[in-house]
């Protein structure tokens, strides 16, 4: 990262959904806003803006984070994956089980759910429900989400393990 002068913009390199890029951003910019308003990736939603609701969840170096709490300059040299990186066809189990209704929480829900689906080893010592606790939903009552995730994980297991 180029060292800034007072209030100056910052130039950083990062990878978003597999695409390496160089960006010049405001130091105050949040990853959520960079994705939505600079990169045209509006999937991540701003719900609470305080790291509680999970609607803005993306993966940063493969781990779920609230993008409303990530200063974009901290994503320098890192890999960001937003909901746009998920092929719609993958979401069939979630749709079948009623995991989505109004859609506000859905992008964050499926980012976290897919992360769990790809890392079944996480469920050895924590339940899927605990791992999903950072994604609040006010429509489904959660059962549809948990059923969809269970079906999604079974589909992954049928194929001989987690996706790469």
């Amino acid at each position, binding site marked *: *990262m180029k*060292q*800034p*002068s*007072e*209030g100056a913009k*910052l130039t950083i390199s990062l990878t978003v959904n597999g695409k390496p890029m160089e960006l010049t951003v*405001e*130091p*105050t910019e*949040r990853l959520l806003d960079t994705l939505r308003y600079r990169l045209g990736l509006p999937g991540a939603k701003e719900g609470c*803006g*305080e*790291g*509680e609701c*999970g609607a803005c*969840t993306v993966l*940063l170096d493969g*781990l*779920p*984070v*609230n993008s*409303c*709490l*990530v*200063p974009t*300059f*901290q994503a*320098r*040299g890192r890999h960001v994956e937003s909901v746009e990186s998920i092929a719609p066809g993958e979401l069939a189990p979630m749709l079948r089980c009623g995991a989505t209704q109004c859609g506000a929480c859905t992008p964050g829900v499926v980012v*976290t759910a897919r992360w769990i689906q790809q890392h079944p080893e996480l469920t050895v*010592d*924590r339940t899927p429900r*605990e*791992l999903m*606790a*950072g*994604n*609040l939903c006010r429509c489904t009552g959660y059962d549809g989400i948990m059923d969809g995730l269970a079906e999604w994980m079974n589909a992954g297991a049928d194929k001989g393990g987690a996706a790469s």
Partner: protein
Amino acid sequence: MKVHAPETLEQACAVLAQHAGALVPMAGATDLLVHWPGKQRDHDRAYLDLSGVAELRPLAWTDDSLKLGALTTYWDVLRDPQTARQFPMLIEAARQVGAVQIQTRGTWAGNIANGSPAADGVPVLMALDASVTLASTTGTRTVALADYYTGYRASVRRPEELIVSIEIPKRAYDITAFYKVGPRRAQAITKVGVAIAHASHAGGGGWRIVANSVAPTVCRCRSVESLLDEVGGKPFTAPDGFLTALRADVAPIDDIRSTAEYRLTVLARLLYHGLKGRTPSVA
């Protein structure tokens, strides 16, 4: 807003010294960025972003301790099998800090530095006799976490110093427990919480009772600790037995999350529940 992004600890200390400590250290940013767009005053400050200082990230085991780096996250600890065996109470606390999205970003050192009396990472560290190492261009020093806070969001850390590590000594614990009470099980800020630890005196242990959200800082309850050490007294058979000692140790208030009365009452119940039948003084 101005951001300094050093890549080594030496650079970080040098930049901090150049600015006479007038930079806000930033690790996982989970406290700093809450409701960020509306915080114009915070936008005008200067920050020291530590996230590029790779040497501060790893946790390390020695023969007699666990050392957390300044950038070690809750998730790093949750995924460390040796911590689960040696310090299960750290795992208990880490699981109750926010949810995964916070656990992957939030750091133990940031929880200490932020200085909230409701910090959930601090009571367990304090109950395990953790010490904090601070570094500056003039050298390093280590202070007991129990002596770190001097008042509400105030500490012995000088502005030109950075927390660089947290060390937790290995001890033979026969009792450890952590209880957090919030409005719901997940994703809640603590109304009252307590960490309990007991190790044999031979190993430098004894009782450690550390409460959060009941005083201007996370604090050790030394009157309760001495009470539990008293031999030959009549054992407590109800939570109320702790109230007199607790009133000497903590000073809960009414605020948006709870009331002083609720906090004191529940803290006494947590202690009773956690200790009943596990020590001769609580039956």
